[in-house]
């Protein structure tokens, strides 16, 4: 197992009486792209802000590249590329100014890449940030992070507002940088289809808790979506099959389960006739975990550490 690039122990943050994040224990290995998923207000933004040291945790601690997030030394701070969802440069700043600002702190700053990225979107160096469209602003901020060639990339909704081709370019660049530069990326997003294409792992946060953290490869192998007739009773599953959630949709009941390796045949045997079993993608897995299921059980009650 490779060294953890990011580590948290019991990390939590309250805003007044509201628990935005509760006791998060997570270790993210180097060289991975982690899709950080969660409903609005689930705590993903708070998690990233705690990692980069913008906020003080109420409980627990976190480390990035073995340095405490709240006391990042100069040389470690320069290795972290952070793109906040709502954090923006001043509107009067020009693209060139922003490039110089980032280049000054990042020893590895790839000026040619940044200039290429701007040219590709027809953005002039003298353009003022405030005059750009929402998508262009996101593009500039994402390009700043990527051009810095950081060892750690923490990005909050980097693709929101980007057109499909820009989204694809952004994620391709991110993936390439992680693969070639042995970097690590944590990307919080609600556009699951895009991130699934490049992610290695997924972590799901709901109500301030990490309810799942797993390799996508394992999820694809283990998670199944079962379609039952709506009038069928919920089948009894053995110990090797974990019920993730269920939902009744028109005349069918959808059930999501995670099967231990080698227990797929057991699943098929436990299902009534007329049932169908499909592999689940990341979006299905995410919905299964975060939606309140139809039998009244709240999914966030069941925590599934890795």
């Amino acid at each position: 197992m490779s060294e953890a690039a990011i580590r948290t122990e019991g990390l939590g943050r309250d805003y007044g009486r509201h628990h935005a994040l509760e006791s998060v224990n997570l270790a993210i290995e180097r060289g991975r792209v982690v899709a950080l998923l969660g409903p609005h207000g689930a705590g993903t933004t708070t998690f990233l802000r705690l990692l980069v040291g913008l906020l003080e945790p109420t409980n627990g601690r976190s480390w990035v590249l073995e340095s405490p997030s709240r006391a990042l030394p100069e040389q470690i701070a320069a290795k972290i590329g952070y793109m906040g969802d709502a954090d923006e440069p001043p509107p009067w700043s020009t693209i060139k100014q922003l490039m110089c600002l980032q280049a000054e702190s990042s020893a590895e700053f790839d000026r040619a890449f940044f200039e290429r990225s701007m040219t590709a979107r027809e953005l002039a160096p003298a353009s003022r940030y405030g005059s750009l469209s929402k998508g262009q602003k996101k593009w500039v901020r994402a390009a700043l992070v990527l051009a810095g060639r950081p060892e750690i990339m923490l990005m909050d909704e980097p693709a929101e507002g980007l057109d499909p081709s820009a989204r694809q370019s952004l994620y391709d660049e991110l993936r390439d940088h992680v693969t070639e530069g042995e970097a690590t990326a944590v990307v919080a997003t609600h556009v699951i289809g895009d991130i699934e294409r490049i992610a290695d792992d997924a972590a799901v946060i709901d109500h301030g808790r990490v309810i799942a953290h797993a390799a996508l490869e394992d999820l694809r192998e283990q998670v199944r979506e079962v379609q039952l007739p709506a009038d069928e009773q919920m089948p009894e599953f053995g110990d090797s099959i974990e019920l993730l959630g269920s939902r009744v949709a028109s005349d069918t009941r959808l059930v999501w389960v995670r099967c231990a390796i080698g227990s797929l045949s057991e699943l098929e045997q436990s299902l009534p006739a007329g049932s169908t079993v499909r592999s689940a993608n990341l979006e299905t897995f995410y919905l299964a975990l975060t939606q309140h299921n139809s039998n009244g059980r709240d999914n966030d009650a069941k925590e599934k550490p890795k």
Partner: protein
Amino acid sequence: MKIKMPLLAILLRQTLPASLIALPVGCLYVMFTRNVLNWQNPWMALFVLAHSIAIASSLGRFGSPNFAFLYTRGYSRDELWAHKMLGTALCVLMVWSPIALMLWLGVRSAVQDKMFVSPYFPIMMTREAPVPWFWLGGYAILLPLFHYVWIRRAQPLRGENGIVLLAVGVVIVIGILMSFRWHPRWFRALVYTLSAVMIITTLVAGRMLHRDLEVH
């Protein structure tokens, strides 16, 4: 620590509105005030106070998205603090230097002589020469204090309004001291010593607390 020019430029740009307003206001006041200026001039004291608050607030908006962006560009907290202090000093000098030069080079006394036929014209230049240093001293006392107030208010544990009251108290004490006409020599020495201690304390404490502040 190397000076990072792009970071300094961005910080200076943050304070530009304050400088653009303060410079003409200060220059016009100094140019056209007909009385001989002394260190007890209340309008210049208010000017220094207002300018200091404007600088500290422009460089202390830790709740703004702009600062969250700036604080995540890969600069350490100490680097950011050092550049903030450097930016503050440059911002003060941008406004203070032209005003002081107007006094020292005789521009003010010439204007007073030619435009207003001021009877104080012959003594103005010599009597007013030390006054800009008092204004600079005012900046030196107030700015570290105000920066400290803004940094303290951005600490994780809120409810730090006591520090605001303390700053108000310091300003009131300065105002009272300014209203005294005659100070014995020992008292003056005491005030200078206490001011120096306060400047050093607020600078050191501000630097330490700056490492822990939260940027929302």
